[in-house]
C-alpha cells in the first residue's frame, strides 16, 4: 500500500521523466525544432503533428510498463 502513489497522479511525472530520457531525447529535439520553426512563421501550413506523435509514441512506450505498477 505504502509504495503505491497517493492521490497525486503519477502519469505526468513519468511522462516527463520518459520525455527527458535518452531514448526520447532525439524526438523531443525534433519536436522542439519543429515548434520553433512553425511558431516563428518559417514554414507555411506545416504542423508538428508527426513530430509530436513520434515523440508521444516513444514516451508511451516508456511509460506503459511503469505506470500500472503504481496503480491498484
Amino acid at each position: 500500500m505504502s509504495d503505491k502513489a497517493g492521490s497525486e497522479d503519477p502519469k505526468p511525472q513519468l511522462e516527463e521523466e520518459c520525455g527527458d530520457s535518452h531514448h526520447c531525447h532525439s524526438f523531443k529535439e525534433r519536436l522542439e525544432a519543429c515548434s520553433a520553426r512553425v511558431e516563428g512563421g518559417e514554414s507555411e501550413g506545416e504542423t508538428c503533428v508527426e513530430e509530436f506523435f513520434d515523440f508521444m509514441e516513444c514516451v508511451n512506450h516508456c511509460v506503459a510498463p511503469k505506470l500500472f505498477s503504481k496503480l491498484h
Partner: protein
Amino acid sequence: MMNRAVFGLGARAAATAARAPVLSPAQALRAQQRFASSSSQSSQSAFGKTKGEAALWFAKAAAASAVVGVSLSTFVLTDERLEPLAQGAASLMAAAGMPTAHAFSTGDNGLHPPHWPWDYNKPWATFDHAALRRGYQVYREVCAACHSMDYIYWRNLVGVSHTEEEVKAMAAEYEYQDGPDENGDMFMRPGKLSDPMPRPYVNDNAARKANGGALPPDLSCIVRARHGDADYIFSLLLGYCEPPAGVTVREGLHYNPYFPGGAIGMARSLYDEVVEYEDGTPNNASQLAKDVTQFLAWASYPEQDQRKKFGFKTIGITAMILTLAIWWKRFKWSHVKSKKFVFQPNAVCARCDCEPMYL
C-alpha cells in the same frame, strides 16, 4: 510333402542371406570408418574443411553484414547530405506528372495507444472485481452525466460489482415510466433489477443539443467498438494536452491526439480526486481512468471470466481425451501393426499334413 515344406523354408533363408552383402570384418570396419568420416567432415566446400570452420565463416559473414547494414541504413536515414537526393527524386516525379501519394496521414488516424499491461488480459486472470466496483462508481459520478449505457441492466451488476440488495437500492433511486395502469395512464415507479441503466438524455437529438452537436456515444460496448480496445479508452481519457504547433482546434472542441482527427467534443473529465472511493484507493486521475476502463471492458466483455474458465476446462479435458484416443488406437492396431506376412510361392499349404491342392 515334408520336403516341400522344408524346401520352402530353406529358399526363404537363402533369399534373405543373398540380400545382405557379405562383408569380412576388415571390410566392415573400413565401411564404418568411411561412414563416420563422411558425417563428421563435410565435403571440401568453400566454407572450410570442417564444420567448425564453416560455422566460423558464417558467423563472420553475418557479423560483417550486420555492421555494414546498420551503418549504411543509419547513414542513409540520418544524413542531411542525402536529402537533396530524395527531394530531387520527388521533384522529378512531380515534373513527370506522377501524383504524390499521401496514403496515410497520422493526424487523421489518431495516435496509436500503447499496450497497457492489463491484468485481466492474462489468460489465467479474471477481472479485478474491486476495480469494477470502483469503475462503476466513476461511471455513475462522472461519465453518466452525458453517456448512456442502454444495454447494461441493473441485474447485470449483481454478483459482479455489487450485491443484490445494493443494486436494488441503487435502482430504486431512479424513476422509470411504466404502465399503462387500469385507467390507461402511464405512471412513474422506482427502478427494479430488470431496468436498464438510466439515460442522461431522452434521445440522441437532445444529447446532441446539449453537447454542442457532438453525440456522446453509448458506453455499453464502447471497448469492443473502438480500435485499440481498452488501451484506446484509457489513453483517450488521460490524453488531453496542448495541440502541437500549427494545429488549431475549433471553439468548443478539445485536442486529444488519440482521437482520430485530434479534435474531440468531450472535454477532459477525469481529474485527481473528482471521485471519492469508498475503499480508500488513491483517487488520482490515472487510477480513476484505469478503473472506469476496466468497468467498460467488463461491460463489453461480460463473459470473459466464464469464457476463460471454460477454455481451461475444454483444453484440459480435450487433451486427456486425445491422449486416451491415441493410446486406444495404438492398442487396437497393435495386432495389425505387428503382423508379418510371408509370401511362399512353392508352399501352397503351410500345414504339413495336408495335400497340396494344385501344382
